């Protein structure tokens, strides 16, 4: 199999040869935060690991950090350090690769768990955004003390959402913290009169009354309306 020369700011963009040699004439990158230099701008994965002190290289997984994603680099895969997207790597002792996606971008990682703060740094997630793990029906917000478990079968899918979201009550925008609310909490928030019914347009686009004891995960752009208890069969 031929070696693949790789850089890559992301999987979707054409990498640019934008990185030059340092003042010492050597090409460099960071592995686990430590600067590693090479005379040859196109080292192989095992060479990068070796230079970073990850020995024997075969016992390690090398992960390349991209702008929107991360990928594993094979031991015999050539990396072109002149290309953008080759600024930073991580080396993990082990032989398994764990996968997840964030906002549709693919990530590979070398350990089965990532603390939320590290995930936030890795994925360049701003402090005004929440990290959310997709789950059928009840997506889970990751808090600063949470750890993303990648050891389960399948690929975890995550997305980011603004911490404050804009919803509409009777078409008037309201900025509220994202999250799950009880019907009563929402009625208080929107000052819905006692006896009136709060309705919203659900994911399928149906105008739907909220059940009195119900709960709703409120999402950005959601539309709410109040139903006046009037009318009757004549």
């Amino acid at each position, binding site marked *: 199999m031929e070696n693949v020369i790789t850089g890559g700011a992301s999987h979707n963009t054409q990498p640019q040869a934008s990185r030059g040699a340092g003042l010492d004439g050597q090409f460099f990158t960071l592995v686990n935060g430590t600067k590693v230099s090479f005379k040859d701008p196109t080292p192989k994965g095992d060479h990068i690991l070796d230079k970073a002190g990850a020995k024997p290289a075969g016992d390690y997984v090398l992960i390349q950090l991209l702008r929107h994603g991360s990928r594993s680099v094979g031991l015999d895969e050539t990396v072109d350090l002149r290309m953008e997207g080759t600024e930073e790597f991580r080396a993990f002792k082990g032989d398994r690769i764990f996968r997840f996606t964030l906002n549709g971008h693919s990530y590979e990682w070398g350990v089965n768990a990532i603390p939320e703060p590290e995930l936030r740094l890795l994925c360049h997630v701003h402090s005004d955004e929440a990290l959310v793990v997709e789950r059928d029906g009840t997506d889970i917000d990751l808090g600063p003390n949470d750890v993303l478990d990648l050891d389960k079968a399948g690929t975890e899918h995550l997305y980011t959402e603004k911490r404050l979201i804009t919803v*509409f009550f*009777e*078409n008037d925008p309201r900025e509220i913290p994202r999250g799950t609310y009880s019907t009563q909490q929402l009625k208080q928030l929107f000052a819905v009169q006692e006896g009136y019914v709060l*309705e919203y*347009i659900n994911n*399928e*686009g*149906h*105008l*739907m*009354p909220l059940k009195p004891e119900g709960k709703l995960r409120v999402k950005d752009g959601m*539309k709410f*309306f*109040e*139903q*006046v*208890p*009037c*009318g*009757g*069969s*004549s």
Partner: protein
Amino acid sequence: MRGLFVSDAANNFASIAAMHPEAVLLKEGGQPVILLPAFRFMAGDQPHVMDLLLVPFAHSGYITRLFFERKIEDRGANWNQHRVVERNWWAPSWNHVPEAMPWTKMLSAHLRAVT
């Protein structure tokens, strides 16, 4: 007064169009009626999709009316067929939804007939 009426209709229509962007403002006998193509709503916990026609003025003996493209079985009372804006519609007996009510609320109050 006529200018005020036009402004109210425009504001009301803007609100109902924000709720349902496909809404179309039509006229019946010189008065505004609102066609809501493929409107999605719940009736007895069942999702329904059909054209609705909101008539925000007195019609056929009712203060205001909401017409349905199809009759909903086991929901609403005394369904009758009507012809409005050159089209056949179904409507249950449901009265006392005030004319002065904003159209979004009027629509919602009429949908109580089938919830």
